[in-house]
């Protein structure tokens, strides 16, 4: 069934709300207004105000309430409108939710889901366009998934709601309106921690996440090299086996990221693969990222900021041809020395 990503999210929520009376959904403007991105369309009508609630603008309060609710029998799904708003609630996720199982000897667990819209491309400016996976990355006890379209949004969200631990779902905002074929029902559920090979190839393994998946696919189209393109889908835990097995066949790794160069999520993938697959690598591991600057607001700068299809194609092409790491554009064009 073809649908927009926002519709797939609303459908995943509705399917879980229907199948499990413990599921509740709350966040800012998600009930009566059906969500600022219309990701909870129809939920209040069908499930009523006891289970579908608008909250005040108080992320620390309602994320904390989700922790307490999850520990005592509910399966809350909370929405953070823009990932940046998680900053004021980070304690509840990183220091409370993800530690409850450990700090109760396994007696309490926190089956909550925190959804947030992320990413650039829509002109929201520096404080509404980040992805911020790395705020959460070094947090044992937490899981983190990132859909790349309607199909994975549906499947990962349903898996997240059924998971016994806190799961963060980061939804690339720019993809909410994009349509894709979605497998609904139980068959559409995508297990957490499992990546997916979207295209087979033998010259290079390209690992991408979120909105960079479609960029990587487009860059590989009609290229003179054959890329094996992996949608990582889960970042905590990430599918080490799948990636390493692929690199063992291709001998090259490129990570395409919507994150700053310094400390972006791909550093983990690159360092692991560089060490684990050292013997089979024929070229240095390479990351294609954004520059180390805040996300600029104007359209032309935002487009420059995000790795484009042409840029990704050129970078991968150079790596495959020379077995040397191409420099990023901000260095070759002289903006950063």
């Amino acid at each position: 069934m073809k649908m927009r990503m926002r519709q797939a999210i609303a459908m995943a929520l509705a399917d879980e709300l229907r199948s499990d009376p413990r599921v509740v959904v709350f966040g800012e403007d998600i009930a009566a207004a059906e969500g600022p991105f219309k990701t909870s369309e129809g939920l209040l009508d069908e499930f009523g105000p006891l289970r579908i609630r608008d909250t005040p603008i108080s992320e620390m309060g309602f994320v904390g309430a989700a922790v307490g609710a999850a520990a005592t029998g509910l399966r809350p799904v909370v929405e953070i409108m823009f990932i940046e708003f998680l900053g004021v609630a980070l304690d509840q996720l990183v220091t409370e939710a993800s530690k409850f199982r450990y700090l109760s000897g396994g007696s309490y667990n926190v089956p909550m889901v925190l959804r947030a819209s992320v990413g650039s491309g829509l002109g929201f400016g520096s404080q509404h366009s980040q992805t911020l996976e790395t705020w959460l990355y070094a947090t044992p006890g937490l899981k983190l998934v990132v859909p790349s379209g309607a199909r994975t949004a549906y499947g990962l969200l349903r898996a997240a709601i059924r998971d016994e631990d806190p799961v963060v779902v980061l939804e690339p905002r720019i993809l909410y309106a994009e349509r894709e074929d979605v497998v609904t029902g139980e068959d559409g559920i995508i297990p957490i921690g499992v990546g997916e090979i979207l295209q087979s190839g033998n010259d290079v393994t390209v690992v991408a996440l979120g909105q960079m998946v479609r960029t990587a696919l487009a860059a590989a189209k009609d290229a003179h090299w054959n890329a094996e393109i992996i949608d990582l889908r889960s970042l905590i835990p990430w599918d080490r086996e799948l990636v390493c097995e692929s690199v063992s066949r291709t001998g090259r790794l490129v990570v395409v990221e919507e994150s700053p160069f310094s400390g972006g999520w791909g550093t983990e993938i690159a360092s692991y693969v560089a060490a684990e697959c050292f013997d089979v690598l024929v070229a240095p591991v390479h990351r294609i990222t954004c520059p180390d600057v805040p996300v600029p607001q104007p359209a032309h700068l935002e487009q420059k900021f995000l790795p484009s299809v042409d840029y990704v194609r050129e970078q991968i092409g150079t790596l495959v041809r020379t077995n040397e790491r191409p420099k990023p554009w901000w260095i070759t064009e002289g903006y950063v020395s």
Partner: protein
Amino acid sequence: MTNTPLERRRMLSDPILRWDRMLEIRVLEDRIKDLFAEGLVHGTTHTCQGQEAISVAIAMSIRPSDHVCCTYRGHGTALALGLTVDSVLGEVMGRSIGVIGGVGGSMHLSEPSVGLLPTSAIVGAGIPIAVGAALSAQVLGEDRCAVSIFGDGASNIGAFHEGLNLAAIWKLPVVFICENNTYGEYSPINLTTPISDISIRATSYAMPAEIVDGQSVDAIAAAVSAAVVRARAGGGPTLIECKTYRYSGHSRADAGAYRPAGELDEWLKRDPVVLYEKQLIEASLLDVASAKEMRATVAKRIEDSIERVLASPLATVASMFQNVIGSQSK
């Protein structure tokens, strides 16, 4: 023959055993301080001498099925709710007999059979979590309520205000209990807070509030019982402020040198353990001789526990790797 946490909880229906529990908290806290001073314990601890009446009054006024969130100054609450001395001391001393296997330490206790959610080392963090536990009761239609215990210092953090606001607009069955011991860590309340009565803050959330004598078991229990009845009946949250005092410093590293001369002595005159003992004697429920005997019995109980804990195995390396995520997860 040791009693389970639930059995220990039920003992609090007997006034004599309430006093026994207060003594137990006092002696254990004093001895924990000693053990740290002797270098037998690693890390830090936050003891609650002077606040025993609050812990016991709360535990006797709510049901074991009710949810409790409390702070890192939580040994007293934990013992009052029913946790055994061995399980608390074992946790403080990193032993596998600790209530969560020794990986948590002094600040992290938890016991679902008596409703104790994991205690938090973050000031105020438990407030919205208790609100969420109350939300569970409301959505699931359970006859349960939640209790959030925190200090006066926590009333200056956002979590307090966001938690009270959420509980008020959703009319949740939760009781907020502020142990106002007049110090937030090392700072006196008048330097950090423009009011001395935290209960005033409930007005902003259209929430009933009450100030009670934090050294009086009966006064606190009456207020908590009334709030719990209102919460269960759908009447929403209440804020109870217990005026109390911390006989020790903030943590083991703090001798409380910043306290004005004579302040501690004034509060020692209203020692909750002594006050309750007098009350029981005046009511002829206890006589002086048996009170003395009970003090000796409790002291012996704690010494025996210390001996057992010291002889018990340290938390295993394997325990460090357990309970990070669920076993069903990849």
